[in-house]
């Protein structure tokens, strides 16, 4: 697929002017998927929608990469009580900035996807949780939602059917942890954003103790594409195990950073050199953080032939994450980078679990010591020991996300850490 990427026509962010306006969106096939389903409910019962999405194998774009249709199928049978869909637009991870493009340029695609998801799971209320810093995009989304209500795509008896759903936006207050699905629910309920202990899982006991599914914005935006074109069409985009269009958020030391929509499974070097215009100032590539700051950094020398999909990235010991690629050139000091990432996780740890609350701070302080040239060799062992005891010992994955960059960068860039600790001048390779 990556061969003919140049001829790829974007689906999530097509180059159409004013696509965020309802008439423009409708003119370009907007809300067709929704009306197809609702006008032909015998052909498209909710189970059929779930099956189709499951078949399409949309792997969650929020980082975990879980099959969205499979996740929907975990919702229990309706029992008459309320059920919720929470849309996760809290993207706050350093290096991740793809959902804002959807809010900005194609909000109706996401809204349509969310309504279809609500139909498939018998959901009554959709909440869209957006990070507070996205104030302008919340306004844009609110406007789009208003338009959808006006047109009868949202609200009571949508398109004359007996299906009704409400949609609300909710702004976060600046906490990274609220992007974790269970603390997102706590935050929506008006509580402190502490992740919940699982089980029970959200599908059993979610918002206000009711069945809830949490999906990423980009994941939901893929749903109308699947309904319109069929699962088999969707699956032939990109590799079988991780199909579909992906919004690559490319940042760092490249000439043209930005969000690019291409098929999943693009070759990483193609993305860097051709899509993003190559490394800045003609420098050499040193390292890549492939999917947001929590994914383990990798050395440039392992990237040949590696593609952006879960399986290929696993081979080199990292993860797809949110496809928020951070490119680091040869001038980058990895100790500085990792310290800065550690600083972020120290700042964002919610403080609920002991290993994360104390470990993130300890990591940052130790890295700062090394960064300032006061480190000793034993500090590297200490860092690895702290990582060991943080990983897998907490309620949510933030401790893992904080520990991995440290562990893997010491693993993969040990010479740089050692030279700092040995108090020698670090010569740029």
């Amino acid at each position: 697929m990556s061969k003919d990427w140049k001829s790829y026509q974007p689906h999530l962010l097509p180059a159409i002017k004013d696509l965020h306006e309802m008439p423009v969106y409708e003119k370009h096939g907007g809300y067709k998927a929704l009306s197809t389903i609702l006008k032909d409910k015998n052909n498209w019962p909710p189970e059929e929608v779930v099956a189709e999405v499951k078949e399409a194998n949309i792997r969650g774009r929020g980082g975990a990469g879980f099959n969205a249709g499979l996740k929907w199928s975990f919702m229990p049978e309706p029992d008459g009580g309320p059920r919720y869909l929470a849309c996760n637009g809290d993207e706050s991870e350093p290096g991740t900035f793809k959902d804002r493009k959807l809010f900005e340029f194609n909000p109706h695609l996401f809204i349509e996807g969310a309504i279809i998801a609500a139909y498939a799971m018998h959901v009554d209320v959709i909440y869209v949780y957006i990070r507070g810093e996205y104030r302008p995009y919340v306004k844009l989304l609110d406007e789009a939602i208003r338009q959808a209500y006006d047109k009868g795509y949202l609200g009571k008896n949508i398109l004359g059917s007996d299906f009704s759903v409400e949609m609300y936006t909710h702004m976060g207050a600046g906490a990274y942890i609220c992007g974790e699905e269970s603390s997102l629910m706590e935050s929506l309920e008006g509580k402190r954003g502490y992740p919940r202990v699982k089980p029970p899982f959200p599908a059993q006991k979610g918002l206000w103790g009711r069945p809830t599914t949490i999906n990423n914005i980009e994941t939901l935006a893929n749903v109308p594409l699947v309904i319109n074109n069929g699962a088999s069409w969707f699956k032939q985009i990109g590799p079988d195990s991780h199909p579909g269009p992906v919004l690559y958020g490319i940042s760092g030391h490249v000439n043209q950073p930005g969000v690019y929509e291409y098929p999943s499974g693009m070759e990483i070097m193609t993305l860097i050199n051709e899509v993003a215009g190559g490394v800045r100032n003609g420098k050499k590539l040193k390292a890549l953080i492939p999917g947001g700051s929590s994914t383990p950094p990798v050395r440039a020398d392992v990237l040949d032939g590696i593609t952006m999909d879960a399986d290929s990235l696993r081979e080199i010991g990292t993860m797809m994450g949110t496809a928020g690629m951070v490119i680091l050139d040869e001038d980058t000091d990895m100790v500085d980078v990792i310290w800065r990432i550690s600083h972020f996780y120290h700042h964002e740890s919610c403080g609920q679990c002991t290993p994360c609350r104390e470990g993130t701070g300890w990591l940052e302080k130790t890295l700062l010591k090394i960064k300032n040239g006061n480190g000793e060799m034993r500090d590297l062992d200490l860092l690895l020991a702290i990582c060991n005891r943080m990983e897998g010992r907490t309620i949510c994955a933030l401790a893992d996300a904080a520990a991995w960059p440290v562990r893997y960068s010491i693993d993969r860039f040990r010479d740089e850490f050692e030279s700092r600790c040995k108090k020698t001048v670090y010569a740029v390779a």
Partner: protein
Amino acid sequence: MPEIFIDNKRYEYEEPGKVLQFMLDHGLDLPFFCYHPSLSIPANCRQCVVKAGMPVFDRDKGAYEIDEDGNRKIRYFPKLMTACSLDLADGMVIHTHHTDDLVKQAQADNLEFILINHPLDCPICDQAGECPLQILTYKYGPEGSRFEHKKVHKPKAIQLGPRVILDAERCINCTRCTRFTEEISKTNQLSIISRGDKNYPMTAEGEEFDDPYSLNTVDICPVGALTSADFRFKARVWEMNQTPSIDVSNGKGCNTYIWTRDNLVMRITPRFNEAVNDHWMPDAGRLSYREYNENRISKPHIRLDAGNQVKSSWNNAELTFREELEKRSADKIQVIGSPHASVEDNYVLKSSFEKLGVQNFSFVPHVIPGAGDDLLLTDDQAPNTNGVRALGYAATESGKLKKLIDSKKPSMIVILNDDLMGRTDAPPELFEDTFVVYLGTNHNETSKHADLVIPVTSAAEHAASYVNVDGRIQRTFPAKETLYTNRRLNLEMSMGRLDHYGTKFDNWVSDANRIDCIPAWEFFVRISPDSDRPDWQSSRDILDQISGEVPLFRDVSYERMDDENGIQLKLEQDSEVNTV
């Protein structure tokens, strides 16, 4: 019956539950901080981690898969699990620090984490000695710490409310206190603020933590972050004796411990009793400890003809009392029992005067409508209203006391420990023409105007039983000594009873601060005629007699109360106040 294997030992369970609670119920040790049996399970301290696994079930064969050694194949969870949140499951295998080095290491690691930002100021911390963090660190913690950086600094000595003080640096963020205000007292006054290693519990801006149950957060705080404004810096835990008792400040009869040093009550803390107060008690009950120490009546007092009260000898007091009795006929004597006094004292008061032919027995319920709530505070302000009523005293509402006195015109009134002149509409003038005998623990309006004052023991000094608003009879133990009685000889502080620390004889005996008083029943035994003197040696004997005479108390004994943690009585009257 479903089974579970903990450290290679087999246990059976009936009810579904959590692994940690199951282990605690079976006396197995596992360190934990955030878990509390009466609160929700946040699993946030991560201290109670265990290695857990399930046997592999072969669906085709309908049996567990067996390995080469003939044991069940176990599939372990990939991560260590927190026992507090782990559901019991049939066949589950648990390995704790006793049988798994990884678990042992994980527990030590976690304690190292907790301690890196903990100030380690145990020598000046009030919690030292009863601090789970201190105890568990000695038991499970690492040898030292590898943390070489500055600790996080947070606010110290913040007055959260009138009774609770916060030291945020000591906080380990277990959230027990916030969960208490959310789930038990339901005031939601505390919440964790800030994030990560900077967080600590705090009230909302400008609000104060004046929850009527606020001091319970001090009890459940596993470190010295929350301390009692009243108790802090007063006494070390190991300097005090701890005696089981009950709260006599209201009608609920919360089970308590009385902590004494040198015959002074230093503090009162709740004692677990699922049927009454669970792990909690109201702040008012704790702070009522002062009444055991301060303003106590010591030595009898007699009013002279000039109108002033003077201290007198016990002999003189007894003589005066006998003389006054002989001066008048029995129908001129009014006896007022007390909901604040014990079943035994009220019984002996009534039976002694019945022998003299007295028929006027009443008591004044101490009820403040609206003072109670649906947790542990009650409208009834007295610990024994049901007990005194069951003994045959007629309830006289406080407003009708004047009518009673006006109509019967007694020339002598005997009042058992109850500040009638202070709390009712019966002003001292009402008693001007009568000879008032007051048997009380503390100086108050009534003792001030009485003609004869007999000092009696308080709930902290005698063994006695009380019937709470729900009809549950519970008893106290002597926690501090009086001038004449040695509580050991008085049988109830028995020598065989192990104290909290498992020792028999750790009671710190001191001559200081003893009050010159006797149990009320003992005074009536003393003044009864030699020919007809009951041979009661202790309140235990009295209760035995009561249980034979009064139907409500049938089969009630101190032994049963001790074994069953109080006995639920079948109250015949409804608990509404009957008026005469």
